[in-house]
């Protein structure tokens, strides 16, 4: 039993972490809220009070806003779809008895450790470049016209790059989950005449449900704030401007802090909406 003494000691030990996180969360958030009500453009020396909700109206009514939300959700949805479907298939494949399983696993998870700026640059130049990229060489070799991937199929290209980075993560977690599946259940189902598809649908998939939720939660946290991949490849051009990137452009590139801060608050709201849904599901899962 914990004594009164150890209880107060415990509370004391938690204080630094809780205090720091509270400050880290609240101070910038309150400043952003305050800035969002100002006409604040440091380059022009404007710092005028009391715009009210003008920045919010202006941000949300600009045509860039809706596009950026759609782009953000496209990126999120595309990457989640590819990594989860691909991850399940790869996990099942790697779970089969094969030669050199350890080495294949190391090859498959490697992209996760590559820093985002490197993977974006390598893909952009060495693969997707319309003149010297490997894809261009490949297309020419096949007698096709090379494509300038990042301007002709920009969203597809970025989703591809980001999926490449996150597929290993999904695979690794789903593989770990599949390996904990009781193989006798599968054998019993097979003896009862269940085909591979119904074995997958009725046994493997339900078993993976929890891990899939976890993968979705964690990837969403990181994907909503994706920055480097866009910064390095298109710089937000060709319709690849996510909400994160739009706010970055308003605040840093055009130095319109009031407008950008209102955008930042929208980003916080969007993230919270997504988080709220996810926390419900995952919070329940983690309790079990």
């Amino acid at each position, binding site marked *: 039993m914990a004594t009164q003494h150890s209880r107060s000691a415990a509370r004391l030990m938690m204080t630094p972490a809780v205090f720091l996180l509270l400050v880290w969360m609240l101070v910038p958030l309150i400043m952003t809220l305050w800035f969002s009500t100002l006409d604040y453009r440091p380059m022009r020396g404007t710092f005028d009070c009391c715009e009210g909700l003008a920045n919010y109206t202006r941000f949300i009514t600009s045509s860039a806003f809706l596009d950026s939300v759609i782009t953000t959700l496209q990126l999120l949805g595309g990457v989640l779809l590819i990594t989860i479907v691909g991850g399940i298939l790869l996990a099942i494949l790697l779970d089969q008895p094969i030669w*050199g399983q350890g080495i294949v696993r190391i090859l498959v998870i490697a992209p996760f450790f590559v820093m985002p700026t490197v993977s974006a640059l390598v893909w952009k130049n060495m693969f997707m470049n319309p003149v010297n990229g490997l894809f261009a060489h490949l297309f020419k070799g096949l007698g096709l016209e090379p494509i300038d991937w990042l301007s002709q199929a920009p969203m597809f290209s970025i989703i591809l790059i980001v999926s490449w980075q996150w597929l290993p993560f999904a695979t690794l977690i789903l593989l770990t989950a599949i390996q904990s599946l009781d193989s006798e259940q599968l054998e019993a189902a097979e003896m009862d005449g269940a085909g591979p598809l119904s074995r997958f649908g009725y046994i493997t998939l339900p078993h993976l449900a929890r891990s899939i939720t976890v993968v979705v939660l964690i990837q969403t946290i990181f994907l909503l704030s994706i920055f480097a991949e866009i910064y390095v490849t298109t710089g937000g051009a060709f319709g690849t401007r996510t909400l994160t990137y739009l706010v970055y452009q308003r605040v840093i590139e055009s130095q319109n802090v009031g407008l950008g801060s209102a955008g930042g608050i929208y980003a916080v709201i969007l993230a919270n909406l997504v988080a709220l849904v996810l926390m419900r599901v995952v919070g329940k899962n983690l309790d079990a």
Partner: protein
Amino acid sequence: MARAVTTQRKIVFTALAWIIGLAIFFPILWTILTSFKTEATAIADPPVFFNFDWTLENYRVVQERSDYMRYLWNSVALAVGSTLLGIIIAVPAAWSMAFVPAKRTKDILMWMLSTKMLPAVGVLYPIRLILINMGLLDSKTALIFILMMINLPIIIWMLYTYFREIPGEILEAARMDGATLKDEILYVLTPMAIPGIASTVLLNIILAWNEAFWTLTLTTVNAAPLTAFIASYSSPEGLFYAKLSAASTMAIAPILILGWFSQKQLVRGLTFGAVK
């Protein structure tokens, strides 16, 4: 009854797995190969795979031109510094939540995780302003603190899941034998917690090393780590594939190797113990 696996089936699956594995790894392999080529060979059409004159020239040039060692040192300082600082703050917090849980412990943990979901871009300008006023823009001190803060929820969660697996009976036994709180932490818990702490450290070094929002937006020269070093190669005039590859290889090699060693811990750590 063991599942009968025909050799034929094993061959098919092995071939398939290797093809997919190599395809996924290919961009990294290609980058490493290209780093040893001359610029002319690097863009040769058709592409050259292994039969070229291997050269270390690119590595020398990259180091000379962009001072790789300084960026490397910054990356190491930021990753290790922020992780250690995080551990110092997180261990007591995780310890108290794991061993002296209160009614609201679960809520506090959830709240901590939720701070991770606040989009960084929403608070970029205030943070920049605070740093400018404190004269800390482009300083390692500020970045160590910021990277520590963004990873703190993950560090606490990881340690919490590890600590919770240490059986409470052992602590009770130690207490019965007259161990004080200090003895308990120093001689009983610490030895049992070291593996968990070690994998937490490893994983957070990887996360901090690859962090590319704050490191890109808050540094210019002095504190810039490898993420920024590589981003500087995105300007058109810096576009030399062989040198880009050499720089990329140098930026990812340390963490790639570290990552391969810690892949088991990665699953537990990053899923907050929800998948084992």
